[in-house]
C-alpha cells in the first residue's frame, strides 16, 4: 500500500495505512491527536473539525487519501499559534465554552471564519458557525467571543 504523505501540524508525515480510513480515526488513533472529537460521525456537528490548507473541514467524513500533499492542522497544532491565544482569551472572557466537547471544533471553525472574513458581522458569524453544534451554550457567548477576537486580534487575520 502506498503511504499517504501530508503535512500534519507543520510536520511532514507518511501514513502507512488504509487510505480509505477516516481522517479523524487516523489523527486520533495513529497520531494520538485526540483534540478532534467525534460527536456524530456524519458531518453534522463539527466536533471533528480540522484545518485543511487553512480552512475547516469535518475530518469524520474525509478519507485519509484526500489529504495527500496537503496541510492538516488539528487543534493541537493550532494551539501553538498567536491567533489561537487571542481566540482562547476571547472565549474565556465571553464564556464560550462549557462542557468543552464542541470547543476544539469551534476554535477551528472560528479560525477558518476569521481567515475568510476578518471583520464578520453578527449574521456572518452565525452563518459561519452554523456547521458546528453546541448543546451547552446556546451560541450567543461564542458569537460574542468571535466579535471580541476579531477586534482584539485585528491585523492577525
Amino acid at each position, binding site marked *: 500500500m502506498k503511504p499517504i504523505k501530508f503535512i500534519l501540524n507543520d510536520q511532514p508525515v507518511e501514513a502507512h495505512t488504509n487510505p480509505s480510513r477516516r481522517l479523524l480515526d487516523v489523527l*486520533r488513533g495513529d497520531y*494520538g491527536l*485526540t*483534540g*478532534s*472529537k*467525534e*460527536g*456524530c*460521525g*456524519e458531518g*453534522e*456537528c463539527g*466536533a471533528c473539525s480540522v484545518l485543511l490548507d487553512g480552512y475547516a473541514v469535518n475530518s469524520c467524513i474525509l478519507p485519509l487519501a484526500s489529504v495527500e500533499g496537503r496541510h492538516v492542522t*488539528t*487543534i*493541537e497544532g493550532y*494551539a501553538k499559534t498567536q491567533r*489561537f491565544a487571542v*481566540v*482562547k482569551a476571547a*472565549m*474565556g472572557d465571553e*464564556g464560550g*465554552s*462549557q*462542557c*468543552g*466537547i*464542541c*470547543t*476544539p471544533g469551534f*476554535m477551528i471553525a472560528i479560525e477558518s471564519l476569521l481567515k475568510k472574513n476578518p471583520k464578520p458581522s453578527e449574521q456572518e*458569524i*452565525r*452563518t459561519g*458557525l*452554523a*456547521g*458546528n*453544534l*453546541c*448543546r*451547552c*451554550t*446556546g*451560541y*450567543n*457567548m*461564542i*458569537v460574542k467571543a468571535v466579535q471580541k477576537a476579531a477586534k482584539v486580534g485585528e491585523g492577525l487575520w
Partner: protein
Amino acid sequence: MKDISRSVPKEDHEEKVSGRALYVSDIQMADMHYAKTVRADRPHARIRNIRLPELPEGYVVVDHHDIPGANHVNMIFEDWPVFADSVVRHVGEPIMLVCGKDKQIIQSICDEIVIEYEDLEPVFDLQESVVHKSFQKGDAAAAFARADQVVERVYETGYQEQAYIEPQGFVGYLEGEKKVTLIGSIQCPYYVKNAVIKTLACDPEDVRVIQAAVGGAFGGKEEFPSLIGCQLAVAVHKLKKPIKIIYEREEDMIVTTKRHPSKTTMQAALDSAGRVLAIKAHVALDAGAYIGLSGVVLSRAMLAVTSAYTIDHLDVKGDVYLTHTVPNGAFRGFGAPQMIFAIDMFMHHLAKHLGKDPYQFRKAHQAKQGDRTATSGIFRDPILMDAMVEKATSMSDYHRKQKDYASPDVYRGIGMSWFLHGCGFTGSGESDHIKAKVRLRKSDTDHVYVLVAAVDMGQGAKTTLKKVVVETLGVPYNQVTFDDPDTDAVPDSGPTVASRTAMIVGGLLAQAAQTLKETWKRGETQVVEKTYRQPEFVIWDEKTLRGDAYPAYSWGVNIVEVSVSPVTYEVKVEKIWSVYDVGKALDERIVLGQADGGIAQGVAYGYLEVMRHHGGHIQHKNMTDYIIPTAVDMAPTETVIFDNPYALGPYGAKGVGELSLVGGAPAVAMAIEQAIGRPIQKIPATPEMIMELMRDETH
C-alpha cells in the same frame, strides 16, 4: 466584602479550548479492548434462540448468564434489566456485549449472530399505569360544586433528546484480581458504583468509579450510565482486559433515555368574577419499557402544577404508563417542563376564554410570599416576581408589541412565561436517601483538596464550588485543588442533578471551609467533613405529598418574540429576554451561560425538536433527522439576574441549572399562538402542526 458573583476564569477553560481535556473516548490504555452491544430489533418479543458464530480466540460474548448478582440496574424503581433474559420490551434493548481486541472482528461477530424471536403484542398507548400518585390542597370538590363554570383543556408534549455532543461511553479495567475500575462520562459516580456493586454482588471496595471530562449530560447521564457501567463491569471480569465502549450517535439516540412524552388534562373551576377557584389536573407520562426514575419525574411534574401561581384548591393526579418503547428518564427540568407548559398555556387560555387580558389575569393569580404552595407548604422567602415581570416586560417592550401583533396578518407574536423551579431533591429526598457528605482535606503544605462527588459537565461546578471554598478560606486559587471525582477518593456528596449542586453541595462546602478556617493549623494535615441536615422548618409527608416539597424555589420570567412565515409556516425566533432569581449568582458569567444554554433547549423543545417513534422504532435517530438549534436558529438573548439571597444557600445561592429551561416552551408557544391566531396545546409547534391548525379553522 468582594462580590461573589464577579466572574473568575473557568477552572477547566485552558484544557478544553486546547483539546487537552480527556473525555472517555480519548483515554488510551495498553492492550485496550472494545465492546459493542447486540440489541433487540423489535419492540416486544420472546427470545427463542440465539445462535453465535464460532468466536475467535480472545473474543467473548457477555450476557445475563454472566451476571453474578442482580440482573437489574439499581435505581429508584428496580425493573430495568442489565441484559434482557427471555423477553425484550423495546427496540434497542441490550441482549449481550461482544468484546475483543479488533473493532472490525467484533462487528463481523455481531453481524453473524442470529436471534430468533417470537413476537408478542406491543403496547404503545397509555393503558397500563404502573405508578399512580395524587395529592389535594384545600377542597377542590366543593370549589367545583360551587363554580360558575368549568373549563377543560388538554396539553401534550413530545419526546426531547438530550443531544449532548459527546455520546455515552466508559472505559473499564481490573485492578488486581477482583477490583473493577470504571471511567465514564457520567453525572453521578455513586449511582454507577452502587449499581455495579449490586450487579456484581461484590464488596463496595471492589468497585471504583472515576469521572472523565463530560461532554454534556443534561440528565442523559444521570441514570443511563449505570446500565452501561453494570454491563461493562461484568465484561471486564469475564475478559480480564481493559475494555472501552463508546456509543455511536445513532445507537445513543435510539437507546438512551429521553424526556417523557406527556399528556396533561387541566380543569379549572371559575367563579362569576372569572377567578380560578380550583384546578383539577391529571398528568400522564409515557415511561417507555421500564419505570426507572419515572415515578420521581412524575412527582416533580405534579408538584409544579400551579407553577408561579397560587390556587387555593387543587386535586392533582398523575400516572406513569409502560409502553414498548425506549425507556425515558432524566432530562434537565425532570417533569417540570411538561407541567409548566400545561399550566402556563392553561392560564393564558383561561383568560382568553373569559375575554380577559391574559397579563392581568395571570397577575391576579400570581404567587406571593406567605402563600401556600401547591402541596400546602409555605413560600417562606421573598418573591420578587412583580419586579421581575416589570423588568422583563419593559426591556422587551412587551405591552406595546402585544398590541401591535394582535392582528393575525402581521404573523409576529410575543409570548411570556413565568415559573418557578424547586431547588434540590423533592421532599425528603436529600435527608432520607442522599445524606450528602463533603470533605475538605488540607495537606501538611497547607494545600486544600475539595473532595466531593459533584461532576462538572459544563455547568461550571468545578469553578463555582472551588470558588466557594477559596473565598470562604480567603486563600489564593492555586492553594485549592478540585479534581474530577473518583469514588476511591471522595465521599458521596450525592448525584449531580436536580439543581442541587450549588445550593446543597456548595452549602456544605461553605460550612466545611468555615470550620477549616476556624481550626486552621499551619503545616498540619487536617480533614473536615460535613453532612447534610434538612432545615428544621421543612416538613414533608411523602405518602400524601403534603408539606414543603422543596427548601427553596428559584423563579424566572421568559419572553420570546417570533415571526412565522405565512407561506411555509416556519418559525423564526427573533429575540429572547429573561429575568431570573437564583438567590445569588456564585459566578455571573457561569449563570448567564446556564441561562443561555437552558433557554436554547427550552425554546427548541417548544417549536423545533421533533422526535417520534413508529411501531417502537425511533424515527429521528441522528443529528440530521433530530434538529437542535444552530447558531443561526438561536436568537440573541438578554438576561438579567436579580439578587435575592437565600439564607441557607452558600453566599445566598439557590438552584440554577434547570430553571432556565422550564419556561422556554410556553413562552415560544404563546408567541406562535399570537402570530398565527390559533391556540397551541401541543408541542413542538412544527410547521406541519401550524399548517393543520390554520387549515382546520379557515375551512
